[in-house]
């Protein structure tokens, strides 16, 4: 190891990484940047946990841009198996190859057998793809949705960044990919997997950072609109909703209002576009009963 790992040229500290991430439109705080810095430098996966919409998945995309590497995404779901995550044999092509070989005059069973189980008949699924592509950023999204058998298997791959195919031997990554594992914490992921990773708990960003994020994501929006929408979203987060809005919702809201040509947030427009931030009928009713006007005024005054 050269001691720098995957760190791009010119990044000497977490603060430098904050700058690089900002250039590609991701505003990270110090903790997250430190985690990413360590992950890149020491080839460790990053385990990001937090509420939906705090930017876990976006981080992987931003890292891919910073490293100028392809993003390889593995979306986890219940029942996901090695053949969907790691590799699979291309059986139809193997059969076809066998038939063609048989038809040839100089049919040599041993040679054909060897060809059949060679790399070219192996379909690389995301994990193997990431090991074979360097550099690359591997996003293992929502690992908490997969079942625990899958975790054990993932642990094996992430521990030494190699995969053993019985028919073929061990495939090892020359340079391990940068790995971001995300979880919404619908269940506890096993400690062994977390122990392999740097664990970072993401929180909703503080007000100024969120305004900056909205401004970056919705450049057409006026400064006033950005600040007011963010303030209102913060007020909604304190309003005891079933699903408090995340950053993604704040951005959606700002986009919706900008599309309507609103210079700022007013109660009428807010009520009309509430669907962009509040996603449950119970929450809509709650926000209505709270008197959107008063909420906004308070939020904007506090901003």
């Amino acid at each position, binding site marked *: 190891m050269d001691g720098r790992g995957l760190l791009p040229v010119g990044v*000497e500290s*977490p603060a430098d990484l904050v700058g690089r991430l900002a250039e590609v439109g991701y505003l990270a705080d110090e903790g997250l940047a430190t985690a990413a810095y360590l992950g890149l430098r020491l080839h460790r996966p990053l385990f990001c946990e937090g509420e939906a919409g705090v930017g876990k998945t976006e981080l992987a995309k931003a890292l891919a841009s910073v490293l100028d590497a392809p993003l390889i995404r593995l979306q986890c779901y*219940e*029942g996901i198996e090695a053949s969907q995550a790691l590799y699979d*044999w291309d*059986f139809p092509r193997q059969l076809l190859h066998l038939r063609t070989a048989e038809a040839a005059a100089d049919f040599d069973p041993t040679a054909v057998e060897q060809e059949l189980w060679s790399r070219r008949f192996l379909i690389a699924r995301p994990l193997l793809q990431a090991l074979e592509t360097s550099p690359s950023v591997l996003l293992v999204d929502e690992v908490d949705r997969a079942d625990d058998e899958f975790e054990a298997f993932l642990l094996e791959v992430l521990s030494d960044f190699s995969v053993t195919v019985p028919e073929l031997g061990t495939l090892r990554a020359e340079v391990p990919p940068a790995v971001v594992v995300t979880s919404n914490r*619908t269940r506890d992921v096993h*400690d062994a997997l977390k122990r392999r990773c740097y*664990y970072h708990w993401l929180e909703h960003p503080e007000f100024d950072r969120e305004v900056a994020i909205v401004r970056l994501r919705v450049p057409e929006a006026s400064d006033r609109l950005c600040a007011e929408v963010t303030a209102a979203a913060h007020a909604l987060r304190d309003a005891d909703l079933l*699903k408090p809005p995340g950053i993604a919702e704040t951005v959606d809201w700002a986009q919706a209002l900008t599309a309507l040509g609103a210079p700022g947030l007013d109660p009428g427009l807010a009520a009309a576009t509430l669907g962009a931030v509040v996603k449950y009928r119970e929450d809509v009713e709650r926000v209505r009963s709270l008197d959107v006007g008063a909420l906004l005024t308070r939020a904007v005054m506090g901003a």
Partner: protein
Amino acid sequence: MSGRAGDRPAAAARLVSAGAGSGATAGHTTDGVGDPVRVMVGLGRALDSAGLRVGPDRVAEAVRAAVALDPTRRTDLYWAGRLTLCANPDDLPKYDAVFAALTAGDVPRLRPRPQHLVRAVPVTLAIPDAGDSDDDEETEAGADTVLRAAASSVETLRHKDVTTLGAAERARLDQALAALSLPGESRPSRRRRPSPHPGAVDPRRTVRALLRSGGEPVRPRWTRRSVRPRPVVLLVDVSGSMSGYADVLLRFAHAATRRRGVRTEVFTLGTRLTRVTREMAGPDPERAMGAVAAAVPDWSGGTRLGLLLREFLDRWGQRGVARGAVVVIMSDGWERDDPAVLGAQMRRLALLARRVVWCNPRAGRAGFAPLAGGLAAALPYVDDFVSGHSLAALEQLARIVAGVEVRGA
């Protein structure tokens, strides 16, 4: 790597601790803040005694991270430790406290964490003493023989209300409880398993067989969906009105979490909601009970079932813990607050969960009628209503959760 601080002259200007400023370089300073090895080992020990599982591997990882950063900066040490030694949002307040105490100063935190993540300092309260702790060292095989010998006498206490048992009977009951398990009813999984009977074709195995026979047609191989138990969520009321039963129910919960392959979550309801699933981990019931007692700050307080249920749904249930699960509420349904709140939350729960089972130990008493205000409001959303006051009743509960026995509310 340890020469890193030297690579950056600017680092010297950023020394946080006065002691580390006396020409010390990373890795060699004896100052409490400056030496990453000392800090991390200290942090690891302190966190270990605070209940976090921190092994030497993690401490080594923390040191490696600190050295890769700037170990002379407090914030870098803070993050190096936090990223490697914590594995759970619940760990963070403990980590912050330990870090602040150890390095004497404020935690470089960005802003105050939301209230609900901050846990009260655990107060150790004695739970009703039950069973001999001599059994601790017993091997599994040993426990088995004891269990068999005790089986016949257990039969007689199966139907006794657990609050009426003597110490010896309680000890036997605890052993019997440890043998129970609580898998949820089964459901088809998305995973497929090989099957000898016709169903969906398994392309992998079929083509493998084809290849083996040189491409000649063979009998297709089949798969079927495998079945898995549904996750189980136990919400155990530990308020004052449940004091006689809480210990037994928690032991039952411990036995339930022991079963492999079943996802079981356990929460206690008192004046506040506490997740005790992690405390339940480990084979020894006595140790688990000790850990739970230390983690639950509100034994024998009053209950605010509706509010706590809402907190459970907001923080856990809605995100996935209750989805498709069998949720068992173990409570007598005495609600201090407005029963309407409980009713509304029960409705939410019923929409998320596969089944809602209410287990009320008081229902086992003669002349019981579900008149407690909270209970009356909750019952319309309950699929099964059972008593759970005795071993036999808990066994019945296990059967209902497993979907073997169905009994209406």
